[in-house]
């Protein structure tokens, strides 16, 4: 079901504030209407009520929807502060004095809301300075001004100042000047902070705060001419007053709109659930999530538990971003990690929104994850098959080269030597004999080369005697002492024997080349339907399957048999190559 924006139900505690706000408004209107001379017009009173009640109403809604966010409370307080400031019209001394005391408090509220929206927190030093300066103006300076006499320039017949302790008109006038000067600076500072916030905001956050910041910026922009007008004895009459009031009336409306947009985003999670309830076309889940969270930059990374890495929907490897540029929310299902949403850090203001979107999409994400896993496997398979084909091709080329450059050339040279011996045979038997010796030595070398070549293609002893014997032969020829621990009661299948043999052989080559090791231990076991092959050296470590075609080729070979190859090679602490291959 799509959640409705209206009616909005309020918790009882907040509901009690509604009659309080109504009473405060009516009281303020009564005070205004009862002002002794030049009372505000009916329209002015209406605008004032609009401003105050707008703040309280929108504040209550915000408070209800986002109890963890201070914004709603501040909006409600600002509404009440607005009504309190209308007490300056009172004729009763205590109320009048209270009105004077709280005259500008609402501006503190508006300022705080502006610099802290939408998460209700102050992030930068500049933001904190703005709020601190506002507190100084409406708090200590206002109190000091009252204590030292109100120094009212209007020269009205005002009620008694019940908290006055001294009458120092010069001091209180100076305080007013300081307040107004600071107020102008504060307004400029707020605009600067707001502009900076806007510039740094991501698209989705801009969407939420745009209306608020625009109206707020307009309001504060109007406060500057208003203040200057006041300082310069009102050369513009009172039209800046009217403008500021109207602008202020739009601020809570703007907050409401901002709030509405957040509400819509939450509604979109419900839309998402509805959408996911229907058939989700492959590849559209990401778009649906991006829509629901209003973050076009959102990316979904699927977790492959086996491979211990993230991939995108196409199965391509994905690295999760680190740092503050992007935020990451993990999605779990039945306790297992299935995906991660990589999103705009602005959404981190609403973690529960992201989490609920993730949870809503849980099943669909799991489906997509399975597909991504399949694609990743296919991709791995394709890549490894390609590498195997390439390796076989390279191997054939190497054999051809060895045969052509080595054995074949040697045989040709032997044929020539024999021809020479033949032609010398009668004339110079001694020379002929030495040529024959030469030919025989050359033949021995050719035989040796051929033997090595054929052994390299497939060691006969592997077929004849099995892995144990073949590894033992390997140990005889190794350049390092090899400790063999082969625990096989019967022979492994041919292809596994071959893989294990070449794994050890390749590992030994690698160790001789790079490891600077003093000993190697080779362990081969068969346990629980798995053939386990492990080669450990005590060398320098730092080996990596991603680099060096040797280890990569081994991994492919093991992979092709449905097994897994793991390389542990901490720098300075030797290398362990460990393979597990299923064998029934």
């Amino acid at each position, binding site marked *: 079901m799509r959640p409705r924006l209206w009616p909005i139900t309020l918790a009882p505690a907040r509901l009690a504030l509604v009659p309080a706000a109504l009473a405060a408004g009516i009281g303020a209107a009564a005070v205004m209407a009862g002002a002794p001379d030049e009372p505000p017009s009916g329209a002015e009173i209406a605008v004032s009520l609009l401003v105050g009640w707008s703040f309280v109403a929108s504040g209550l809604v915000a408070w209800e929807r986002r109890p963890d966010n201070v914004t709603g409370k501040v909006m409600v307080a600002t509404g009440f502060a607005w009504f309190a400031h209308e007490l300056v019209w009172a004729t009763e001394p205590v109320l009048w004095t209270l009105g004077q005391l709280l005259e500008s408090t609402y501006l503190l509220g508006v300022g705080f809301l502006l610099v802290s929206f939408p998460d209700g927190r102050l992030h930068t030093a500049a933001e904190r300075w703005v709020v601190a300066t506002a507190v100084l103006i409406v708090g200590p300076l206002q109190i000091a001004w009252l204590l030292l006499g109100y120094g009212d320039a209007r020269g009205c017949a005002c009620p008694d100042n019940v908290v006055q302790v001294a009458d120092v008109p010069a001091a209180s006038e100076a305080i007013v000047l300081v307040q107004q000067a600071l107020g102008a600076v504060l307004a400029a500072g707020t605009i600067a902070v707001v502009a900076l916030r806007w510039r740094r905001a991501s698209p989705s956050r801009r969407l939420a705060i745009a209306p608020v910041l625009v109206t707020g910026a307009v309001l504060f922009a109007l406060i500057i001419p208003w203040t200057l007008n006041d300082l310069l004895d009102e050369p513009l009459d009172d039209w800046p007053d009217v403008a500021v009031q109207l602008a202020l009336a739009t601020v809570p409306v703007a907050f409401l709109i901002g709030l509405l947009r957040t509400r819509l985003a939450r509604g979109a999670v419900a839309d998402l659930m509805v959408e996911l309830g229907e058939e989700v076309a492959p590849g559209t889940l990401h778009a649906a999530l991006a829509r629901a969270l209003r973050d076009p930059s959102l990316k979904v990374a699927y977790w492959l538990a086996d491979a211990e890495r993230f991939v995108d929907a196409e199965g391509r490897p994905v690295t999760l971003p680190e740092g503050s540029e992007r935020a990451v929310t993990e999605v779990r299902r039945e306790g297992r990690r299935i995906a991660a949403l990589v999103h705009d850090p602005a959404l981190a203001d609403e973690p529960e929104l992201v989490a609920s979107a993730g949870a809503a999409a849980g099943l669909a994400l799991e489906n997509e994850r399975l597909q991504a896993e399949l694609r990743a496997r296919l991709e791995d398979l394709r890549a490894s098959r390609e590498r195997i084909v390439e390796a076989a091709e390279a191997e054939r080329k190497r054999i051809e080269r060895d045969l052509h450059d080595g054995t074949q050339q040697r045989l040709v040279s032997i044929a020539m030597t024999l021809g020479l011996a033949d032609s010398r045979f009668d004339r110079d038997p001694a020379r002929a004999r030495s040529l024959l010796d030469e030919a025989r030595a050359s033949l021995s070398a050719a035989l040796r080369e051929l033997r090595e070549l054929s052994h390299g293609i497939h060691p006969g002893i592997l077929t004849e005697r099995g892995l144990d014997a073949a590894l*033992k032969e390997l140990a005889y020829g*190794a350049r390092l002492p090899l400790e063999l621990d082969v625990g096989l009661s019967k022979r492994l299948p041919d292809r596994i024997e071959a893989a294990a043999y070449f794994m050890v052989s390749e590992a030994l080559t690698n160790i001789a080349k790079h490891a600077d090791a003093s000993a190697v231990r080779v362990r081969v076991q068969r346990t629980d339907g798995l053939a386990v092959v492990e080669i450990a050296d005590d060398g320098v470590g730092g080996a990596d399957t991603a680099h060096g075609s040797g280890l990569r080729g081994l991994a492919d070979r093991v992979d092709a048999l449905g097994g897994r190859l793991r390389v542990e090679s901490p720098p300075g602490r030797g290398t362990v190559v460990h393979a597990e291959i299923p064998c029934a």
Partner: protein
Amino acid sequence: MRVILADDSMLLREGLARLLDEAEFDVVGRARDGDELLALVSTHRPDVAIVDIRMPPTHTDEGLRAARTIRERWPDVGILVLSQFARPSYAFELLEVGTEGIGYMLKDRVSDLETLADGVRRVAAGGSVLDPSVVGQLVGRPRRGRDPLDELTEREREVLGLMAEGRTNRAIAEQLVITEHTVEKHVTNVMGKLQIPASADDHRRVLAVLTFLDSA
């Protein structure tokens, strides 16, 4: 001296026969596989059977199996196994069959008629023959920790190698052009340094030395 050849390659079989003929051996039979060989040995009772290790039908180790059967049925027939590869493990398997009148030789050696003829004669005489390349692998293989072979002098290592090849003291003396007495001294030193139990018996000596080289 009467010999029988077994090799599935006609080219090699005929070539070998020609060489042996040249060296004045009497080639009384030529077999293509293990079964033929056994039949021929049974008929002719040769002094030596020269057997290719790899023959039909499995092309793996028929030669070794045939050697085992021959030794069981006709213990006085010498056996010289030819192999394409110098494999210590096959040599050990063969020596398990027996050390008397047994030889393991790399096929390449046939290019040197002298070496081939010498090997056949030593086997016929009841000696053991182990190809130098196998011995080379055993002597030269890397060892964990301190290599006891480092204790030996250059000459002692030579003597050790020749002992492992199955040569008698006299043969070693001839090869190194020293007196038999000097060879005996070297042998005593080698056995002492490597703590191999001394043995007057040449066959036991071969086994002891090889076992040491394989395990140390």
